[in-house]
């Protein structure tokens, strides 16, 4: 019964999301400032033509090519896989190349740099600390066999599709920083690794090829570590790739609290299995 009601509610919400409005032009309200040059911030309004499939990135690049070429913006793949173009669009962190103008309400679109990242220029922010947080959680396989020593004996670690599913979702992360920008703890705590790094810690922790663990766990079990997440969920609600960092964080915490047992058996190399 309850499940049925819930399903109904979910459906209603989704229908709501799907709305598209086609316009022929929109006004981009672009945040402008050059930090290093100590320029003060202001907004520029630029009108650009749009079509049904125009993304906010398309619109901004059109503005850059034909209206004001000095707009500072970071972009690369234009297909939501490189993570360059994160910015606040109408107040919410999103990927510009992944947000169609037709999905947005109103004919003015406000674009601002991601909060919680040091600002550089216009829509561009500094990711150095974000990347450093990622590096700090030791995001790599720790295993004696990590580097293949004997090229004559090649084999893979055995990993069933079920083993894969345990971490696959978290490896969708494109390091776009939207979650970092949305998280209320990151907003005040400069030492908090943030949802991206913490969920990557879980991604490697739960991978059955990883034999490390203790050290990585001790890194996140810190005064400014994993416990500073209070399940605000904003990270998961803005993540464009379905990583659900909030889930990864809570699952890892489950292991720290002893709620979940670590039943991970470190995978065997395929060849050893065959010999047995």
């Amino acid at each position, binding site marked *: 019964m309850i499940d049925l009601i819930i399903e109904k509610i979910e459906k209603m919400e989704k229908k709501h999301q799907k709305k598209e409005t086609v316009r022929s032009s929109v006004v981009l309200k672009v945040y402008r400032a*050059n930090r*290093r*040059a100590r320029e003060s911030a202001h907004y520029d309004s630029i009108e650009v033509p749009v079509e*049904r*499939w125009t993304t906010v990135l398309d619109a901004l*690049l059109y503005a*850059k*090519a*034909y209206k004001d*070429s*000095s*707009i*500072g*913006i*970071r*972009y*690369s*793949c*234009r*297909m*939501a*896989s*490189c*993570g*360059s173009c994160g910015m606040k669009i109408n107040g919410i962190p999103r990927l510009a190349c992944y947000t*169609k103008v037709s999905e947005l309400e109103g004919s003015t679109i406000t674009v601002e740099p991601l909060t919680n990242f040091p600002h*550089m*220029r*216009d829509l561009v922010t*500094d*990711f*150095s600390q974000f*990347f450093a947080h*990622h590096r700090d959680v030791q*995001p*790599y*396989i720790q*295993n004696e066999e*990590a*580097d*293949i020593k004997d*090229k004559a004996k*090649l*084999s*893979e*670690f*055995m*990993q*069933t*599709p079920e*083993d*894969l599913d345990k*971490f*696959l979702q978290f*490896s969708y992360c*494109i*390091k776009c920083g939207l979650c970092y920008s949305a998280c209320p703890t990151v907003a005040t705590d400069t030492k908090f690794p943030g949802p991206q790094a913490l969920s990557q810690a879980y991604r*490697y922790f739960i*991978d059955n*090829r990883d034999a490390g663990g203790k050290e990585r766990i001790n890194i996140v079990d810190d005064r400014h570590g994993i416990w500073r997440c209070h399940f605000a969920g904003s990270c998961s609600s803005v993540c464009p790739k379905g990583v659900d960092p909030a889930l990864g964080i809570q699952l890892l915490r489950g292991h720290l609290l002893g709620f979940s047992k670590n039943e991970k058996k470190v995978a065997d190399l395929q060849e050893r299995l065959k010999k047995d």
Partner: protein
Amino acid sequence: MADVISHDVLIIGSGLAGLRAAISAAATDKKLSIAVISKVQVMRSHSVSAEGGTAAVLYEEEGDNQESHIYDTIKGSDFLADQDVAERLVQNMPYEIYQMDHWGMPWSRRKDGRIAQRKFGGYSFPRATFAQDKVGFYLMQTLYDTCQKYDNIHFYNEWFCTSILRENSTFQGLTAIELKTGSFTIFRAPAGIICTGGAGRIYSFSTYAFSSTPDGLDMAYRAGLALKDMEFVQFHPTGILPSGILITEGARGEGGYLVNSSGERFMQKYAPGKLELAPRDVVSRSMIKEIQEGRGFKHETGVDCLKLDLTHLGAECIKEVLSGIREIGIKFSGVDIINEPIEVRPACHYMMGGIHTDVDGATEMAGLWAAGEAACNSTHGANRLGANSTSECMVWGRITGEMAAKYAHDRKANSVQEQQVLDEEKRIYDGIFGGKGDVNPYEVRKRLTDVMDAKAYVFRNEQALAEALKKARELKAVMWKHVDDRAKEYNTNFVNVMEIDSMLRTAEVVLVGAFNRRESRGAHSRTDYPYRDDANFLKHTLAYFTGDGGPRMTWHPVTFTRYAPVERTY
């Protein structure tokens, strides 16, 4: 003079090739300091867009063998591949696949826990190793994360390299601009590896990332290195409209059909043996023929196209192994491939050509190597098989990284030639940043790429190429070089203008090469010379920089070790 930063090995570009080279150099000699310099942040490189697979022979016990992979590659290349290079690729690939597995690559798995492989165009065995349909992304992630283990790898995110510094023919370093501050800096090192990727943005309708411009190629070209086989541009059959974003070949590998407006699976006519899984040049040509003969669809933008039908695969299969392109279809084309066929058209996808190297990836300059798509070691000849490119990046990334590290081991960075630095500073700051042009550079870019799309597409002919060349040279001569944005910090306008400058030169090389090659081979198809001409053209094209004039063209022999050319049918 500008600030100087010294390292032992400089790696330019942080795509698959660059990262693989970095790890291999760092692991070869832990005492060396390795710099990875890239104009984008590491993980933003174009390689993350690669979708379908990485070719390797893994299951010999199940019927695959390396000889067959070698032959498929050579045949796919229309016999223009250097055969020793193809051998090297195939022999090294299994190791790379397993090494990636050990580093955490989420390869898709078979039920028995072993690595899964899928069918891909032009192969006689399913040997595209895949991780859903985000192979390039996962490879990049695995390499990037593995790089974090090494303290001797230093990343220079968002530094735009502008020129190679050299003494006679020995590498000495580079000049680069730090985007964040705008400062012009010299990098010094005894060894360097160019991994700057492809140049597909010289076309408008292209599957490439916006950052795939030819500035890396151009840098080598201006330093006197040859660009090889640049006329061979691969058009991938399935770019979606209107953006050109790719639907992976894996979609056809999993069983997708191409259909024309009479609902017919037209590949039956053109490649009865392999159907949709014929090599890309064959499929793209068939598609254009269908369109020319009036059996295409019209997309709402007015562009001709055909449809890729995946509806018969079923929702579960699509969600499992083609989730990425389903997302792309819904988001960028408004089509859920589970329910509807999706409109596609051949799009510029890969540059077979690049910086001329030998089988080890060494360039003509001592101390300088090239790897990945930027290099042309002639693995792919006139046409690359899908899934062989990420493979190439891995194999030569590793080889060049190792060789550069060994070379740098007992060498010190030399002091650089001051004059070269001053000249370069003059070229970019007086010539470009301080330029007095009044034509909008972005308009120049649009014109150029539109011309390339129109005249140097799947089918080419003498007249069209001549027109395109004329147009490209006109654009080059127009007074357009200027930068409106006067700020030093994060000046992307400046970067764009420098990219456009390199695009003009590289497009010219492509067009001259295509003009000179009066035959049809692989991806280069001339309607006025419809057949392959082994007597006159079984050789590589080389282009050298001559200053403001066009390129100086010469030829280079192809290496044969096992297979004599035969007619290529599928």
